């Protein structure tokens, strides 16, 4: 389990950049990020190396931000990897809210970041089915 940083951004040119500039100046590394083409406002979701420091820096600059727990599952880099993860979740009757992807910096393997209402239980389910859940991207 690891921390995800969510930032409220407006649908307007330059608004994502304001976030990345703030993170850059605080020397924060972004491991994964996801944003979508919503019409009016967006939530930029990120996994970063120093989440608390990132939240503090963005809040200081007037952003609405939130930290929450997400699960990062390591997958093998071969066909059917994502399918096996979703199969395991489906069979365990777990619904997820959203996913996005990145990769383990040491393992060089794909990582799927996912959010579910019951994060702890979901992670336990995945672990019991033999999946590797990451606690950090740098390990």
């Amino acid at each position, binding site marked *: 389990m690891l921390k995800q940083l*969510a930032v*409220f951004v*407006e649908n307007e040119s330059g608004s994502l950049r304001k976030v990345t500039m703030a993170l850059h100046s605080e020397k924060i590394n972004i491991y994964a990020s996801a944003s979508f083409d919503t019409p009016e*406002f967006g939530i930029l979701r990120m996994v970063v190396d120093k989440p608390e420091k990132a939240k503090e820096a963005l809040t200081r600059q*007037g*952003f*609405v931000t939130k930290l929450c727990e997400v699960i990062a599952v390591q997958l093998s880099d071969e066909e059917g990897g994502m399918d096996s993860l979703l199969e395991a979740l489906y069979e365990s009757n777990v619904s997820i809210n959203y996913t996005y992807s990145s990769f383990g910096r040491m393992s060089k393997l794909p990582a799927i970041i996912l959010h579910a209402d019951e994060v702890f239980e979901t992670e336990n389910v995945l672990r019991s089915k033999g999946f590797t859940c990451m606690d950090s991207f740098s390990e």
Partner: protein
Amino acid sequence: MIWAPEETYSREELQAIQLRKLKQTVAYIYEKVPAYQKKMDKAGVKPGDIQTLKDLEKLPFTNKSDFQENYPTGLFARPRKELVRVHASSGTTGKPTVVGYTRNDMHLWTNNVSRIACMGGATPDDVAQIAFGYGLFTGALGLHAGLENIGASVIPMSSGNTKKQIMFMQDMGTTLLVATPSYALHLGEVARSMGIDPEEDLDMHIGLFGGEGMTESMRDEMHRVWGKSFLCTQNYGMSELCGPGVSGECEYLQGMHVNEDWFIPEIIDPETGEVLPPGSKGELVITCLGKEALPLVRYRTKDISRLMYEPCPCGRTTVRMENLSGRSDDMLVIRGVNVFPTQIEEVLLQTPEIGAHYEIKVERKNRLDVMTITVELIDDRLLDSYKKLEELNERIRRNLKAILGLDAVIQIVAPMSLQRFEGKAKRVTDLRGEGL
């Protein structure tokens, strides 16, 4: 057709009627309405001090805030069981402005509306389609009764449902349309987009417009959409005064004839409250004569106009008020609905997820008014999902609709992204401009 003989009385005759009714009205309010008595005592005026029409100036003004302070029926002079109708309009806060009518008031109101309908060219032969929203708004039921009283055939369509409106115009041979001018333009354009040429294919030839002002460029546009021979007039009223029926344009389109035997108009300087000389532009103040349930003396309409006493070729001798040229307060008229920014603010302040700053923008899209309200998000808990943000958006929209009766577009932005003001905040931007 001139509906009532009083509309052609000489100035002396009209003034004699006004003075007689004014004395009665002032004695009546002093006796029946404690709020008026208190205000008059404070100003040191007794009913006996009113001996000439000029003495009207001695009386204190009545404001919309008096309705709020005496909500709901504190300004009423008759008990509830004598009321046969209640209407309401926007208040400056969440509480509406409530107005009531006795049976005699209804009769008076109906006849005053019949007068303005006749000014606008209505006859017993007309088929009148009412495209004002029915409900608490006085416009629809007022015009409805006034036109029925003339003997026209009334179709109570209410507003919206544009395609059905056009079907009725075709199938029922509608000749007269009652609507806000912007909705009338929208209706005409939709008809044209359906391949209907209103001038050739419809019998429509009269428009009686109200609920919002009609500029001259809107009138030109109306002729382009509905045809050159379309007679479009506007009329004036507000629920506090009775509803529609205060004044209306005749076919000469030289201002709106005031039903002076029932309403005394004055023009004042909105800053000082001083009565301005005839012909000056200023805030319109109206005294209602002879209303039973809700007598109203020196009511500040906040509408800016001018009074014209020159004779009109139509034969009516009543004074005309120039088309409104703005407001002396911050009220907005959106789709014919009166909206005070304070009403919006009250809803927003009850929403803890957003900040205290907001912006209101009004535009005209496709001939219809669109209001966008921009608010700042401050609650980080909503960042869990888009659904929570959408729910906030929807909740604000619903609460505003409950208060205003209007749909607004809600835009949620990041904190500190709206402009901050030192001194008086400018929160309203009206991009509708002059004209269309």
